[in-house]
């Protein structure tokens, strides 16, 4: 894809754009996941209350550590569940954006 740079060089420094695009998708996915984890753990451990000062107190710090661990656990569990439901679920329209709701070519 030309927006990622030149295309015609076929030597050792050639750029594999499919590989690059996959890396960008992976980066976006991890960033989105991280941002949601930050927001969720803020809501569970810190947020909402009027802050007495700018520091995390002991209880908040402990809560954040457990929260990150649990969030990662949940991500694993959900991933396994989605995998066990597999391609069937996707094909039948479980994934928004797929399936008959959006017409087909």
């Amino acid at each position, binding site marked *: 894809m030309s927006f990622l740079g030149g295309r015609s060089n076929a030597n050792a420094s050639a750029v594999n754009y499919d590989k690059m695009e996959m890396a960008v998708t992976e980066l976006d996915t991890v960033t989105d996941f991280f941002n949601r984890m930050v927001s969720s753990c803020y809501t569970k451990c810190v947020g909402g209350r009027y802050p007495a000062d700018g520091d995390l107190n002991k209880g908040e710090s402990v809560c954040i550590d457990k929260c990150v661990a649990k969030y990662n656990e949940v991500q694993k*569990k959900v991933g396994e569940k989605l995998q066990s439901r597999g391609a069937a679920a996707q094909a039948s329209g479980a994934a928004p954006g797929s399936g008959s709701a959006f017409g087909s070519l």
Partner: protein
Amino acid sequence: MDFSNFNSAEQAHMTKIIEKKQMQDFLKMYANIVEKCFTTCCNDFTSKALSSKEDACVANCTEKWLKHSERVGARFAEFNAEQASQ
């Protein structure tokens, strides 16, 4: 959506774009389920590991979300078919 007025080159491009979007939508749904089911199921942060109760909750919550999403998709498809036939 109606792509019947697309020529074969345009359909090929569109298929590729749709495939990419389906991948992104799947990843977004994955992140959504994690966020919602975590919020619903996890409220005790005195331990790092999921309790068996939380574990069961996450499994049920995920299953329910998928079934919910499928049902909404089915109703939405019916609605669109109705609209198209009017």
